[in-house]
């Protein structure tokens, strides 16, 4: 067994460990937002480790290209997907864990808020600010 194989095995075991941590966090966290927090980052790290193991195992440029492509794709899309999903959960009124203290979206997104109408609202606010300055 070469040193390369040992490195591949270490990366695979580390990646699997982080995926397992994500799954445990998905079951142990008290809240949908905390579940997203625990799951998304840890899974990204685990997938990165496993795909780097794939690149190291083959050692060719084709393997490295695909592995880095998938890793970059996850680095770009996991924050976006989690953010979109957390926003949808907040807007649909999923209850939060009572231990969560700050709620920075409370004054921006009311119960009757429409995402399509937010742009018009901010434009009106800007116009009124301009009038006040004039």
């Amino acid at each position: 067994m070469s040193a390369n194989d040992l490195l591949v095995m270490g990366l695979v075991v580390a990646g699997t460990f982080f995926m397992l941590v994500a799954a445990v966090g998905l079951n142990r966290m008290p809240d949908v937002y905390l579940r997203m927090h625990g799951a998304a980052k840890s899974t990204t790290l685990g997938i990165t480790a496993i795909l780097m193991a794939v690149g190291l195992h083959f050692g060719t440029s084709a393997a490295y290209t695909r592995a880095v492509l998938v890793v970059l794709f996850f680095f770009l899309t996991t924050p976006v997907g989690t953010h979109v999903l957390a926003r949808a959960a907040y807007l649909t009124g999923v209850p939060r864990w009572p231990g969560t203290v700050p709620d920075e979206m409370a004054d921006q997104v009311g119960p009757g808020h429409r995402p399509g109408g937010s742009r018009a609202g901010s434009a009106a606010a800007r116009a009124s600010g301009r009038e006040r300055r004039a």
Partner: protein
Amino acid sequence: MTAALDGAALALVLSKALCLWRLFRGPSLPDRVVALDQISMHVVALVALYTIRTGQLVFLDAAVVAALLSFLTTVAFARYLEQGIER
């Protein structure tokens, strides 16, 4: 090498079962969507492990496609969730 890969695959299957439990039990719909996202990421990891195990690099293309589909699924579900509350 092979034993380590098989053990890692077994641990990933166990981890996927935990995600499936959250998918089954999640009190709200976003909980289930998060669990589904996790399961599709586990699919990508398992395909990568299978690529190492068999030594066929072609299987890694399936991981690329699974990654693309996982993001699309999450965004589509989020859009669907937000459509229920307005207009």
